[in-house]
C-alpha cells in the first residue's frame, strides 16, 4: 500500500525563545526538510518613521535607542552623525573619542549577546549565554555610570555627548579592558573547537559571497562570507581613520564563520577602545548646538557600522524644525533578505541555528 504524504506548514514563533523576539517564520516541511519559508514580521512595528516627522531633530534621538535596543549607542551615533552632516555641525575632539569608545563597548556587548544566544540556539542551554553576560553586565554598568541608563541610553547628542565621564569611570574601564583579552581566550577555548558546536554550525546556512552582495546583507554576515567590507574602514566616519584595527573575514559563509567573525571583532574592538583611552583629550564634550535648530534644505544618506551591519539614515530636510522624511536602513531587516535562500533544504533545527547566526533584533527589524 503506497503511503500518501503531503507538505506540512508549521509556524515558528512569534513567541518562541529562539526567534529572538516576536519574529514568525512559516515553514513548509517535507518530513524534516524545509521546502519553503516565509517570514511574517511587524509585531513590533511602532511607526517610528512617521512619528519622527512630527518631532524635532533632537527629539528623535530616543527613537534610535529603541530600534536596536541591544546596541542603543550605535543607533544614537548613526543618527547624530547623519544630522551633523546634514546641518554641518562640528563635534569637539573629546566627544569624538568618547563616541568611538562607547560605540566599541556597545559592539562588544552586542556581540556577546549575539554569540551567547547563538550557542544557546545550537543547544548549549543558557550556560554560555551567562558567561557572555558577565562582560556585558560590566559594560552596562559603565554605561550606567556615564549616562544613568543601561539599555535605552540616549547618551549622544547632536554635536557631542550628553555628559562627561565621572572620575571613577576610567579605572573601571581600564580593569575591564585588561581582563577582556583573557575572557575572550576563555570563550574561544570553550567554544571554538567544541565538537557539538562545530557539528551544529559548520556548513549550515551557507551564504555565498555573490548572494551576500546581491541581497545587500552587511556586517558580520557579509564578512563571514569572505567580503572584507566594513564601513569603519571603507568610509570612515567620526574619527575611525585614526585607529589601527583589522577586519576579520570568514571563508565558507556558514554559521560558524559568522560566529568566529563576531568573536574576533570583539578583540578588534578592545584594541580600538584601548587606543581611544590613550588618545582621549581634555576639553568640551558637547558643541554649542541649539536644541531646536533648522538644517538647510537637502537630503543625505549617512551610514555607520553598527554591530548588526550597515545602519543607514536617509534624512530629507525641508529647512524646517522637523525632518521631512526619516528613513532608516536597518541592518537587521535587510540581513533577513537572504533568509529564505539560506534555510530551504535544511532541517528545522538547522534553520533555528541559521536564524541565530544572522543576529537579528526585532526592534530594529520592525522599527
Amino acid at each position, binding site marked *: 500500500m503506497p503511503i500518501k504524504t503531503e507538505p506540512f506548514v508549521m509556524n515558528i514563533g512569534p513567541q518562541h525563545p529562539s526567534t529572538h523576539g516576536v519574529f514568525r517564520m512559516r515553514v513548509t516541511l517535507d518530513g524534516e526538510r524545509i521546502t519553503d519559508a516565509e517570514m511574517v514580521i*511587524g509585531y513590533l512595528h511602532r*511607526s517610528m518613521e512617521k512619528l519622527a516627522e512630527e518631532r524635532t531633530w533632537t527629539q528623535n534621538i530616543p527613537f534610535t535607542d529603541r530600534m536596536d535596543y541591544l546596541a542603543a549607542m550605535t543607533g544614537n551615533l548613526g543618527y547624530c552623525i547623519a544630522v551633523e552632516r546634514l546641518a554641518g555641525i562640528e563635534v569637539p575632539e573629546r566627544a569624538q573619542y568618547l563616541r568611538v569608545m562607547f560605540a566599541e563597548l556597545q559592539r562588544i556587548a552586542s556581540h556577546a549577546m549575539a554569540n551567547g544566544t547563538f550557542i544557546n540556539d545550537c543547544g548549549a542551554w543558557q550556560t554560555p549565554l551567562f558567561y557572555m553576560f558577565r562582560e556585558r553586565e560590566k559594560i552596562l554598568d559603565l554605561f550606567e555610570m556615564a549616562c544613568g541608563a543601561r539599555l535605552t541610553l540616549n547618551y549622544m547628542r547632536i554635536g557631542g555627548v550628553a555628559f562627561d565621564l565621572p572620575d571613577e569611570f576610567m579605572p573601571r574601564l581600564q580593569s575591564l579592558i585588561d581582563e577582556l583579552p583573557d575572557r575572550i581566550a576563555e570563550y574561544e577555548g570553550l567554544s571554538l573547537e567544541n565538537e557539538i558546536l562545530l557539528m551544529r554550525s559548520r556548513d549550515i546556512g551557507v551564504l555565498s559571497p555573490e*548572494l551576500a552582495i546581491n541581497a545587500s546583507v552587511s556586517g558580520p554576515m557579509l564578512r563571514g562570507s569572505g567580503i572584507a567590507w566594513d564601513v569603519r574602514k571603507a568610509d570612515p566616519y567620526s574619527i575611525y*581613520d585614526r585607529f589601527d584595527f583589522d577586519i576579520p573575514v570568514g571563508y565558507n559563509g556558514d554559521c560558524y564563520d559568522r560566529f568566529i567573525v563576531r568573536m574576533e571583532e570583539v578583540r578588534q574592538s578592545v584594541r580600538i577602545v584601548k587606543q581611544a583611552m590613550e588618545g582621549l583629550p581634555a576639553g568640551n564634550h558637547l558643541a554649542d548646538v541649539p536644541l531646536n535648530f533648522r538644517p538647510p534644505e537637502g537630503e543625505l544618506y549617512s551610514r555607520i557600522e553598527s554591530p548588526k551591519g*550597515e545602519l543607514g539614515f536617509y534624512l530629507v530636510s525641508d529647512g524646517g524644525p522637523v525632518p521631512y522624511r526619516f528613513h532608516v536602513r536597518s541592518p537587521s531587516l535587510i540581513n533577513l533578505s537572504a533568509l529564505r535562500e539560506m534555510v530551504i533544504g535544511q532541517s528545522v533545527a538547522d534553520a533555528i541555528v541559521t536564524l541565530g547566526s544572522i543576529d537579528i533584533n526585532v526592534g530594529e527589524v520592525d522599527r
Partner: protein
Amino acid sequence: MASATTLVPGPQLAERISAAVPDSVVGVQEGWVEVDAGKLLDVGRFLHDDRELDARYLNQLGAVDRFDYFEVVYHLTSLSHNHEMVLKVRADHDEPQVPSVVSVWYGAHLQEREAYDLMGIRFPGHPDMKRLFLWEGFPGHPLRKDFMSLPGGFKPGLQRFPKEDPEAWGGEFRAD
C-alpha cells in the same frame, strides 16, 4: 581601496547611463541622477553589470512623498571601487508604480515591500508584493503625508485615524 567612499558625480553618471540606455535620464543634479521609470530596469542592469561603475550593492531603497509625486531613491555602492551612486525615480501620486528591481538586486525584496506597505507605491514585477509590517486590510499607507494631520493644521491629512472613520476608506475596517 580608497580611504573614503566617493560619490560618482551626477553629470558623469548621467553621461554613462544615457550612452548605454538612450533617453533614460530625465534630470541631473550634482548628487543624483533621475531616470525614467519605464527604463529603470535597463538602467539598473547596466549599472549592476558595468565593470567600471560596478553598482552591485544596493545600500538602501527609500521612498519620499513630495505631495505632487512620489520619489523612490536608490543608493548604490561598488564594493570593489568604493564609490557610490544615487538614482531617483519619480512616480505619479494618484497611481504610484515603479518597476521592481528585485531581479537585479535581490536585497530590494523586503525594502520594496516596506515601501509598498508604508508609502503605497506598487512595484510591478515583484515576486511577492504584499504588506510587510502592517496587516492586509489596513486602511491606507501611513507614511504618506496626507495620512494624518497634525493639530494646528501643520500638515494636511485626515482628521482622525482611519480605524475610527471607515467611511473615508469606503468600507468596514478589517483586522485580519
